[in-house]
């Protein structure tokens, strides 16, 4: 769990990390620049939220042992002191300009979303609930009414909600401390990881959730997507000279996960943006016909 910092400090931390990664890999400069307004805005918004620690869902160790994650959509979005529609309105004001700036091809959709929200043609909170709960027909109907494609509306809504989901997950994750969880999906929300990293003198492998940003430990010798432990079917590839970055893949399910070896680094990575520094590996993996463990805003490069 990260320490509480001010919105300005949070945004500055993200800005510095993106600049450092762009210096390290100049070929990624345009991607860093595109995501910078969004990532800075999300970090600031998240840091502005109070701890979302009430109510907490009941913890059932037996269900966790069966691989059931802790929280449902309702557990995430129903927090004491949180007015979800008001939060989403605030997030839209802060982040829609960032989406327009960073992603010029999305500008028309941003305009359409803004108009739908202003004219009450779209209920952002209900749409988000439908999206997260997987009520696809309901979500597609809402997108259609707003004049947007489900993919575009889903992308934008999720970017608005990320600061809230991540902030809530910080509190939810505290319930899981000390409990055994051996799944490749997130113990808090059940989503798959966006990336892995190796840390500590023992080289433990940690996964970072693609949705709620919770971190959990996972085996070095198993596929987080399908659970395959066959050593002859699990591979990794890396570029010579850049050994701290690699792609772990599974021949059984044809999924991959980007991995950063964070051991021995001068500064700990800024996880909010660390995966952006490995987009070249996403590209190489997808050229090999592999699919990411989780599709994220930055890893659909094909």
């Amino acid at each position, binding site marked *: 769990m990260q320490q509480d910092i001010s919105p300005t400090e949070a945004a500055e931390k993200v800005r510095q990390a993106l600049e450092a990664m762009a210096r390290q*890999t100049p070929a*990624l400069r*345009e*991607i860093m620049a*595109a995501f910078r307004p969004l990532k800075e805005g999300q970090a600031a918004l998240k840091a502005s939220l109070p701890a979302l620690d009430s109510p907490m869902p009941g913890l059932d160790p037996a269900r966790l042992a069966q*691989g059931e*994650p802790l929280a*449902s*959509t309702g557990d995430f979005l129903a927090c004491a002191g949180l007015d979800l529609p008001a939060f989403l309105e605030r997030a839209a004001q802060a982040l829609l300009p960032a989406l327009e700036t960073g*992603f*010029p*091809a*999305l500008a028309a959709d941003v305009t359409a979303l803004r108009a739908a929200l202003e004219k009450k043609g779209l209920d952002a909170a209900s749409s988000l609930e439908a*999206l*997260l*709960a*997987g009520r*696809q027909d309901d979500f597609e109907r809402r997108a259609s009414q707003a004049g947007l*494609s*489900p*993919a575009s509306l*889903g*992308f934008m809504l*999720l970017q608005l909600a990320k600061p809230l989901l991540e902030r809530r997950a910080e509190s939810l994750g505290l319930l899981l401390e000390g409990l055994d969880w*051996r*799944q490749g*999906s*997130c113990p808090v929300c*059940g*989503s*798959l990881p966006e990336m892995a990293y190796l840390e*500590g003198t*023992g*080289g*433990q492998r940690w996964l970072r959730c693609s*949705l709620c940003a919770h971190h959990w430990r996972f085996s*070095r*010798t*198993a596929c*987080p*997507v399908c659970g395959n*432990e066959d050593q*002859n079917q*699990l*591979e*990794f*590839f*890396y*570029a*010579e000279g850049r050994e701290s970055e690699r792609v772990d893949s599974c021949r059984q399910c044809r999924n991959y996960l980007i991995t950063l070896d964070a051991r021995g680094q001068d500064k700990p990575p800024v996880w909010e943006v660390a995966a952006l520094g490995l*987009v*070249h590996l996403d*590209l190489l993996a997808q050229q090999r016909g592999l699919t990411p463990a*989780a*599709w*994220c*805003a*930055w890893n*659909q*490069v094909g």
Partner: protein
Amino acid sequence: MKKCSRREFLAATGIFAGGLALSSLGIPLGSVKAFAQELTKADRIKTAKTTISTCYHCSVSCGLLCSTDTKTGKIINIEGDPEHPVNEGALCAKGAAMFQMSANNEHRLTKVLYRAPHAAKWEVKSWDWAIERIARKIKDVRDQDFIFKNDKGQMVNRLETIGHMGSSKLDNEECWAIITMARALGLVHIDHQARV
């Protein structure tokens, strides 16, 4: 490990599977594509697999992760296995140096080298030559210095002028064979590098 179990959240990220590529967001990808192509063309992309193994140095038997290049079959890395209950990823100095004992170490000796007394240079010798010479020296020293009885006239049958230092590169079975030989020769100064 159980098959991964997930609930509804997966649907949220799954919606994007057919959707928003970076290029469709208006982000130019020319530079990153050129970079990826450069890495591929320069043959810098290496593929490897990881095998779970066990350290052979001592009976603690720490867990290891051994990475091997799938093209060359050569070991590229050995490290502790963080999932292993004995060592949880940690290795002692000998275990941590195991990679240097693989074929990757160009300084590893592959021939017998001999430096004569007072000589400055090493000479390459055959194993037969070396074993014969070591046996000869042991025999001569033992014949000369073997102690049958101590000062009190008690039978001791020992040899105090040869010592044996065991190596941590030896496994349990090799150590047993060596100490049997050392005791048979009457040695009493027997130690092991793992202890010191």
